[in-house]
């Protein structure tokens, strides 16, 4: 294993880390549904052909096979695009994997709109919501190659069912090294006092850029959190930061319904209500274009995050010192 400093796709880390895991652990098996070059599991398949099952374009069968393999002592990694892993095979994942609490890892690549040209039929923007809603399922979205490598290695050490979301495009490094652990799944990447930017996956490096521009153009000190484990969400880390800054912008390449925004809002609404603005997909499907063009189209950019932050900052003094409405009784 070696850290990467140049932009690299998170799915590449998944494929390479699987090979490392395969060398160490006999009980790992990998399944794919005719997308092994895209999901990068072909590397494992080449190294360990006996433990690689290409199921063809039959995702439901693949997920239930993974259930059977895990029920018989194996540690399966089942891979396809995020759209098919969660959309086509939801019921299979639910009953066979989550309900049985089996150690199956769903390695879903091509999450979000950044897969680009294939368009709406392939751009999965509600997978985090589906997997978050599913009991017993852990949801992991790494930010870059280095963290994705660790996430894959670490998944072997855990016992619960896991959904791992990877992306198609090369994405800039956020971590200099392969981090030693995902920890609780929330890392403070930059400290600040004025506003908290909470991002996941491909939006993390964009949030860091947004923080730079807020500093440069507005003199605002933004704190940046990377959430790599969206469920279970480590609420202490989130609350600590929002108690300090009092206002939040979340950013995800996903619907704002059911994803990171809602996860953060849920915690905050009960324990420390503050204004929380979201960057993400509204009530809309993806479109064709290059990955970067699609991100731009939906405002999933550093600029998009910074603009939302400026709006949120406008609200902050009002919410912290609510104006008196109606008659003054004093």
């Amino acid at each position, binding site marked *: 294993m070696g850290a990467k400093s140049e932009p690299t796709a998170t799915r590449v880390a998944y494929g390479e880390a699987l090979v490392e895991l395969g060398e160490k652990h006999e009980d790992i*098996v990998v399944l794919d549904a005719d997308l092994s070059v895209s999901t990068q599991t072909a590397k494992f398949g080449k190294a360990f052909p*006996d*433990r690689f*099952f290409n*199921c*063809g374009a*039959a995702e*439901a*069968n*693949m*997920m*239930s*096979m*993974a*259930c*059977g*393999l*895990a*029920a*018989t*002592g*194996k540690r*399966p990694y089942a891979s396809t695009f995020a759209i098919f892993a969660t959309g086509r095979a939801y*019921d*299979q994942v639910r*009953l*066979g994997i989550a*309900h*049985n*609490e089996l150690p199956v890892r769903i390695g879903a690549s091509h999450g979000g709109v950044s897969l680009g040209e294939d368009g709406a039929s392939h751009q999965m923007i509600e997978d985090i919501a589906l997997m978050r809603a599913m009991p017993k399922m852990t949801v992991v979205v790494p930010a870059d190659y280095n963290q994705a490598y660790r996430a894959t290695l670490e998944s072997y050490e855990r016992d619960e069912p896991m959904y791992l979301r990877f992306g198609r495009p090369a994405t800039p490094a956020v971590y200099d090294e392969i981090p030693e652990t995902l920890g609780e799944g929330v890392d403070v990447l930059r400290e600040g006092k004025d506003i908290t930017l909470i991002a996941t996956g491909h939006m993390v490096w964009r949030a860091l850029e947004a923080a730079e521009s807020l500093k440069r153009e507005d003199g605002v000190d933004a704190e940046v959190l990377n959430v790599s484990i969206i469920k279970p969400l480590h609420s202490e880390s989130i609350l600590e930061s929002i108690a300090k800054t009092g206002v939040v912008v979340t950013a995800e390449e996903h619907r704002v319904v059911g994803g990171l925004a809602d996860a953060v809002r849920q915690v905050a609404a009960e324990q420390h209500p503050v204004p929380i603005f979201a960057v993400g997909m509204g009530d809309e499907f993806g479109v064709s274009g290059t990955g970067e063009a699609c991100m731009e189209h939906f405002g999933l950019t550093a600029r998009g995050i910074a603009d939302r932050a400026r709006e949120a900052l406008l609200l902050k003094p009002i919410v912290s010192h609510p104006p008196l409405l109606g008659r003054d009784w004093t």
Partner: protein
Amino acid sequence: MVAAVEAAKAHPDPDALANLALVRHLHPVPDPRPPTKEAALGERAPSIAELERWATILRIECVRMLAVAKSGHLDSSLSAADIVSALYNRVLRHDPERPDWPERDRFVLCKGHAAPIQYAALAHHGYFPLEDLMGLRKIGEHLQGHPDMTRTPGVEVSTGSLGQGLSMCLGIALALRLDGLEDTAHVFGLLSDGDCQEGQTWEAVTAAAHYKVSNLTAIVDYNHLQTDGTTEEVMDLGDLRAKFESFGWDAVEIDGHDMEAIVEALERSRTLDRPAAIVAQTRKGRGVSAMEGRFGFHGKPPTPEQAEAALEELMAKLEEQTAALAATEGDS
């Protein structure tokens, strides 16, 4: 059972109490013990007549369970009783003392809604106490409406969503192959008409042929009745045997209530070098004449009157079978 009885008493419900009274006076089924695992391993394989008698006992348990639970799928369970009896009492290599024995054969009830028939077999083999059967579908009890591997000993994987079971069986078969047990441990999946209507089953059939698994048998409980009518009306499955064969499986068709044919087909299936399908022509509700082969009972528990009539018929059958067995034992 205790919890169920207490619950019934705590909330007097005339139906539940009547049903309970109905099934309790029959307990226990007049039989010593199910054939031991050694018997199943061949030391003293139970005879065809004994297996038939066991099928009747399993049917009786199903009627009782459903009468008390007042919920569940009775005719679906009865349809599969002969196949399940043959499996648990003779064909499967299993050991209730060690449900996790790695080399055991695996049985998966793909048609999970027929859970009572599997529960009856598991209880009679000592996977859990017979009394537990009366807790079927009750809050706080382990016998869920559909088989649940996380709660019930002897259940290999959870089922209940049609179409998933055969894929799960294939996963198990491949894991056994990786562990070098392909020639030792066999996987038997019991499918229904509905399972065969689900596209996923044919994904699994395709994949099993592709991987050339030799330790997988799919038995189809082809009773031609589903929730909304006959399969011919709702969604005709046609010649299932030919379909399996055309996918590269070994496939035979048998009468699913002919015990000799069932045992022969099951035992033959484990000797093959490719996946095996046994299309068993069955009659839904088999053994209870008011239900047998008739539409309108799917997912409906028996009324107290229906349960009483069913038990009377089945008990008479059991007595007849017991007497015949005693006579042949006397002969030898």
